[in-house]
């Protein structure tokens, strides 16, 4: 089966200077939930808007369900549900009027009542959009995307700025869409969102994909599934950092915010050796934690930066 979304060597240069996307390749299969993960300004929004046919790429090829935007745009739009980053829908229309307006653009939309119910907006159906909370607005934005009964759902940072409960509610909606056979492409800069929601993801930085795979895959590639973080009194210069690298089962070392972080395969081997070493140095241990490695660690390992920086 051909990929639902495919792009090859995608490039976008704004005003001939700013290179937002620099040679990006993607292949997304039917029924997948695919995530583009990266910091702000990495080129995620530019990429997704090119795929949605809202921006023309400077070069490269895009195909959606085997069609190109230059051939068949109006027909292709029947298949896509889109939620842009921060669309402000008209405040003086009601929720139902807004959904019905969007439904009217499609040949065979779903019934508005059904969508209202699915997104738990029935109670708010006759309220003005201006009176909705942030979570309700975001659900309405997704409702305007789902009302067309899409084959593909594009979501650009769907949960940014939402409270934890609203985020979970949206995740459920996205999973339900996927369970029903839909394909999802979303962008996010939340690690936990990517880990829980996405079957596969691509880490994007400076307009390029720097790693791609399932969340578990990416963490696996880090070398160790565990992270040991600690700090000691006294010196922790570069030479000292290299000394920790030699401890048993340690895959890599980095310094992060005054703490030393070790990627470790088997913490039960590393930790006793670590305590011994500190003792021999005559330093004192000030802090020690161990945790599961996350995508955040993958990102820091790959770029040397945290995802939420910049």
């Amino acid at each position, binding site marked *: 089966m051909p990929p639902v979304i495919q792009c090859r060597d995608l490039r976008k240069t704004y005003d001939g200077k700013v290179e937002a996307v620099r040679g990006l390749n993607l292949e997304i299969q039917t029924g997948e939930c695919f995530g583009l993960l990266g910091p702000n300004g990495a080129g995620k929004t530019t990429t997704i808007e090119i795929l949605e046919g809202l921006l023309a790429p400077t070069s490269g090829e895009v195909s959606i369900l085997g069609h190109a935007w230059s051939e068949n745009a109006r027909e292709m739009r029947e298949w896509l549900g889109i939620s842009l980053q921060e669309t402000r829908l008209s405040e003086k229309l009601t929720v139902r009027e807004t959904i019905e307006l969007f439904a009217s653009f499609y040949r065979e939309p779903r019934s508005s009542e059904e969508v209202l119910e699915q997104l738990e907006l029935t109670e708010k159906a006759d309220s003005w959009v201006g009176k909705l909370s942030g979570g309700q607005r975001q659900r309405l934005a997704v409702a305007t995307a789902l009302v067309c009964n899409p084959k593909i759902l594009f979501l650009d940072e769907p949960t940014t700025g939402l409270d934890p409960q609203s985020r979970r509610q949206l995740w459920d909606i996205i999973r339900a869409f996927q*369970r029903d*056979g839909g394909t999802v492409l979303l962008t996010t800069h939340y690690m936990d969102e990517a880990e829980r929601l996405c079957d596969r993801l691509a880490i994007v930085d400076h307009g390029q994909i720097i790693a791609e795979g399932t969340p578990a895959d990416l963490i696996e590639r880090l070398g160790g599934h565990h992270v040991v973080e600690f700090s000691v009194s006294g010196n922790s210069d570069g030479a000292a950092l290299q000394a920790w690298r030699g401890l048993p089962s340690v895959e890599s070392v980095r310094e992060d915010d005054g703490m030393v972080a070790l990627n470790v395969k088997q913490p039960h081997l590393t930790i006793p050796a670590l305590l011994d070493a500190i003792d021999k140095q005559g330093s004192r241990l000030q802090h020690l934690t161990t945790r599961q490695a996350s995508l955040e660690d993958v990102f820091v390992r790959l770029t040397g930066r945290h995802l939420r920086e910049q």
Partner: protein
Amino acid sequence: MSVAQETPIKAAEPRHVRPPQRNGRWSGYRHLLMARMLELKREPEVVFWVFVFPLLLALGLGIAFRNKPADIVSVALVAGSGSQDVQTLLARSPQHDLFKIQTLNADEALKGFRLGKFDIVIQPNGNGGLEYQYDPARPESVLAKAEVNDALQTAAGRKDLVDTKAVTSSEPGSRYIDFLIPGLLGMNLMNSGMWGIGFALVDMRQRKLLKRFVGTPMRRGDFLLAMMSSRLVLMVIEVGLLLLFGVFFFHIRVLGSVFSIALLGALGALTFGGVGLLTASRAQKIESVSGLINLVMMPMWIFSGVFFSYERFPSVIHPLIKALPLTALNDALRACILEGTPLLHQWSRLLVLAVWGGVSFVMAMKWFRWA
């Protein structure tokens, strides 16, 4: 709740069992127009600026510039020898109730004259003669001099050689309010066209709503058509309200047919809708489009004969003034409403409007920034 339903993963479509709902060709247009009308109705500012404000303006200006029974001439008389005689003479003249006379010293009289409190200063020169001080640049001052002089000479015994009789006329059709109402109609069509289309579009662009619409199969032409149609619906109410107000409150006589007025209104609304569209074709922020709209409208407020006739400007620039769309609309509305001139005889004005509207629309379509 369907979220909780357990459906097999990657089920084959159709995913939602529902009665098939098929939308026709014009479903998008209908909903866009309805949404636009609902939004306008729910915006109290729109109701005020489009409907109430022009009525208030007509009311205020109509009262301020109503035709008074007779203009009172305000006279300053410098106290001194001879001033008593002047007063007696004026009181004896046939026009005596036309004058409001104040006797005061020379300094105060001149100060009052400078401030526009008096139209004329009369200064007796002490040996029977009088000196008029007036301002030839102020019409009411010129009038005052003629009236005062006439009254004094008649009262003093001057005999007129030609027998004359004055008949007054202030028939509907020639008053200031008759001039004003068609001008306000035109200005109102310009204002609401420019703001209702130009501002609204940039607002939608700034909110990224245009981009979101473009992400659907919505026909872009339908969207613009819906915006224009909403202007036409509003135009009927705007024009009707102000015209009825003029008829009932100021007894304006409408000579043109309702049909021709409606046609002119529609053409005006579409022309300025087109100009509004062009103004809004590139702007990204409502601040920048507000400036642009005012820049476009400013010359027409001044030159196009809304509040006063453009005949006051040097005749060299009249061809330029007449090429402005608002001038064409105002002239056409005045000729139609006040004189009943058929539209066929006004083809050149209609052509000016159509060219402005058409060219703006085509250019706007070329440059319009959707996303």
